[in-house]
């Protein structure tokens, strides 16, 4: 089933934060559960063809987690770790997140997931990510940028086509 719920990403220039907002056609207890239960998270978090595995997970106040994305041969693409600062079911999760294996440590991100009940048993998820610098925030967007190169190229194909048409 596909829904018409659109993902909104707000990343203003020269800011350390970004917001990701999305509605879900499910009660917030369920959406909250999806972001705090490793067995559910592995079902949707990784892109198609990539496997997600938790190295450890303890979703409680003061708990911690670590997960990796890998291919079918077990080659690990990335490992993220963090601690759970606060988890209030089914309202919010505040946690840290850091990509492991960077040449320089300390590029940690503060993530706050807020789950709001909407009419008709829908839920609004707002994820606020606060980075330590504007450069860190831009790098975070660029990760998606780089892995999304294919999408960019498809967009550009369209642009090129329409550009060529105009030029004629």
């Amino acid at each position, binding site marked *: 089933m596909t829904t018409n719920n659109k993902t909104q990403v707000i990343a203003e220039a020269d800011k350390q934060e970004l917001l990701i907002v999305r509605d*879900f056609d499910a009660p917030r207890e369920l959406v909250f*559960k*999806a972001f705090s239960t490793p067995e559910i998270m592995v*079902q949707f978090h990784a*892109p198609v063809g990539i496997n997600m595995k938790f190295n450890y997970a303890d979703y409680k106040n003061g708990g911690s987690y670590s997960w990796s994305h890998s291919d079918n041969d077990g080659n690990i693409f990335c490992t993220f770790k963090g601690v759970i600062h606060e988890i209030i079911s089914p309202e919010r999760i505040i946690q840290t997140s850091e990509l492991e294996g960077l040449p320089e440590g300390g590029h940690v991100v503060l993530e706050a997931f807020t789950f709001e009940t909407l009419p008709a048993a829908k839920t609004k998820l707002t994820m606020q990510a606060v980075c330590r610098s504007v450069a860190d925030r831009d790098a975070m967007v660029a990760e*998606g*940028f780089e892995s999304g*190169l294919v*999408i960019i190229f498809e967009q550009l194909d369209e*642009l090129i086509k329409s550009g060529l048409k105009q030029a004629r």
Partner: protein
Amino acid sequence: MEMRRDVFQAIADPTRRAILGLVALQAMTPGAIAEKFDSSRQTISKHIQILNECELLNQTQSGRAIYYHFNPKKMKEVADWLAPFTEMWEDRFNRLDKVLTKLKSK
């Protein structure tokens, strides 16, 4: 006649796209890039030159070796730079929609 080298022209070529895909993941020397292709080193070198002229590559010197890395800033000029990041999350959330539907019916 001077050839017009713009970003669109640069990325219209599949080999140059493949090169961008490689250096998006990590900085690479021209030699390491050429090894990934069947074409001659000279041909690849020409492609790299075009990408470099269009500022699609960042260049760093390490000793005698030159490393090329993808320059996302240039791409920002021609495409909405947030789009792929948004797409990545949209993709993730669409999968979650399906998981939620399954969980609801339990």
